[in-house]
């Protein structure tokens, strides 16, 4: 009967894990923890070290009570360095004794495919990251910390297990498949979450008849990292004190009087008393006059600025400062005559 081997949680969590903005603040604190306010620099060696730690930690393989050792450096060109990390599992011929796990890094590092940081801000411009309060002994101020967008890189790693037993490669395979069940795993390097993707595996086991038989299985990974160089960070002082000044013209100018808004009557009425047959009116505006009322008028002649305009017209066009003169012929000379025009202001 299967029994749980892992210990059940000894306590119940009393607080909820942080989410959304609070979680983002928490991650930002992780990035700058134990240092300055700025994020820690992240370069190739940091990413390589992080991957080695990932293999040592997350992919730790224990078979029958013994841990499969990991060669804890990336073997490079200096031949003696292999011994430094493998002396404790060498045989009498000073050969590394299986089982062991080793990490190979492809030397070429290409521009990364991490979509969050690729090709979206040109020219490595620096951006506001944080403002930090300062005190120079006399007054408070602020420093503005600016950093450029990190440069994405993809680093290819191969993790190889060399062993003599099938159960060792089975266990290692199980751990890798469980770790990468969601295609990717994360390694926290200097506070940054760096995704690692499993690209596949290959078997290079040596099973020749006339040779020593052993298993080699290689797993390929891509670390989707980014480069963040602290030499690119900018710290510049912010404004600590402002002095606001206004300049005004002391010369007084006479204010030009505004022209009064004409009080436009809705209509113009011309009352011709007894004995009067001619009336004039000057207009200070442009309008159209339309005849709306005519009493005791047989006919009428219209003059504008003493120029004959027409007779018995129902509509008269008036321009500003025009002098309108209307001469009428009454039906009954003993009565008062009236002409009333409506005004349409133009």
């Amino acid at each position, binding site marked *: 009967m299967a029994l749980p081997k892992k210990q059940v949680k000894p306590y119940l969590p009393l607080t909820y894990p942080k989410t959304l903005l609070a979680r983002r603040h928490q991650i930002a604190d992780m990035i700058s923890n134990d240092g300055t306010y700025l994020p820690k620099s992240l370069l190739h060696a940091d990413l390589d070290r992080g991957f080695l730690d990932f293999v040592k930690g997350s992919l730790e393989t224990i078979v029958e009570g013994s841990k499969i050792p990991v060669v804890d450096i990336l073997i490079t060109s200096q*031949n003696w360095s292999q011994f*430094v990390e493998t002396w404790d599992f060498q045989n009498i011929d000073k050969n590394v004794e299986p089982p062991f796990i080793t990490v190979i890094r492809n030397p070429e590092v290409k521009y990364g495919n991490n979509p969050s940081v690729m090709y979206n801000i040109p020219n490595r411009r620096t951006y506001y990251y944080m403002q930090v309060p300062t005190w120079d002994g006399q007054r408070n101020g602020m420093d503005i910390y600016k950093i450029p967008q990190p440069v994405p890189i993809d680093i290819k790693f191969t993790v190889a297990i060399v062993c003599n037993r099938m159960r060792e490669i089975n266990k290692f395979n199980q751990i890798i498949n469980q770790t990468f069940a969601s295609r990717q795993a994360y390694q926290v390097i200097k506070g940054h979450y760096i995704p690692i993707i499993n690209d596949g595996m290959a078997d290079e086991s040596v099973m020749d008849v006339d040779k020593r038989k052993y298993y080699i299985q290689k797993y390929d990974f891509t670390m989707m990292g980014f480069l963040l160089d602290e030499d690119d960070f900018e710290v510049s002082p912010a404004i600590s004190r402002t002095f606001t000044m206004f300049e005004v013209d002391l010369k007084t100018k006479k204010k030009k009087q505004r022209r009064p808004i004409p009080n436009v009557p809705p209509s113009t009425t011309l009352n011709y008393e007894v004995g009067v047959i001619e009336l004039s009116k000057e207009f200070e505006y442009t309008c159209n006059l339309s005849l709306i009322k005519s009493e005791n008028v047989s006919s009428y002649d219209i003059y504008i600025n003493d120029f004959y305009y027409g007779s018995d017209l129902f509509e008269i066009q008036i321009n500003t400062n025009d002098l309108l003169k209307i001469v009428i012929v009454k039906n009954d000379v003993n009565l008062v005559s009236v002409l009333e025009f409506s005004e349409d202001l133009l």
Partner: protein
Amino acid sequence: MAKNVPITRLGKFFGEEDFNLEIDMGQEWLIGDMNFTCVLYRVDKNKIKIDDVYGEVLQDGIKFLPPVEFNAYVQIVAPTNQKIGSTKIQQYEPGNITMSVYLKTLDDLDIDINLGDYVGYYDSENFVRYYTVVDDGRVYSDLKHTYKGYKPFFRSIIGSYVTPDEFRAL
């Protein structure tokens, strides 16, 4: 303590005394007559300071134990005139050095030569070229390295040229 098992093969006409005599005569020839001298710089892996990712040190950062002179039969491969990889840079690459050294010589000097150690070999009175051990010949069970199948008696150590950027005995 390891149990010593006497070697009795070829015992009808060859034995330990004959073997030792042959080695003595060979050493007399190699050391007394030939006298090819190499200088061994053993990397002091306890004192060396390496980075924890690549296990590398910078120029002149390699710590080594006191240099030891030893005699060996030296063969140096002819240099090759070639380009560096796919670059257009041409260089005259010195060939590898093969040093055949008596096991007894190593025992007498109480030294061991390991992978990655450095060896200096004087080309002339005022010029020494350094090599790094790429094959320390530690496994010498094959017939060539035994005295007619009786016991191993020498190691073939292969060194590859290093530039002063990696090692220059400082």
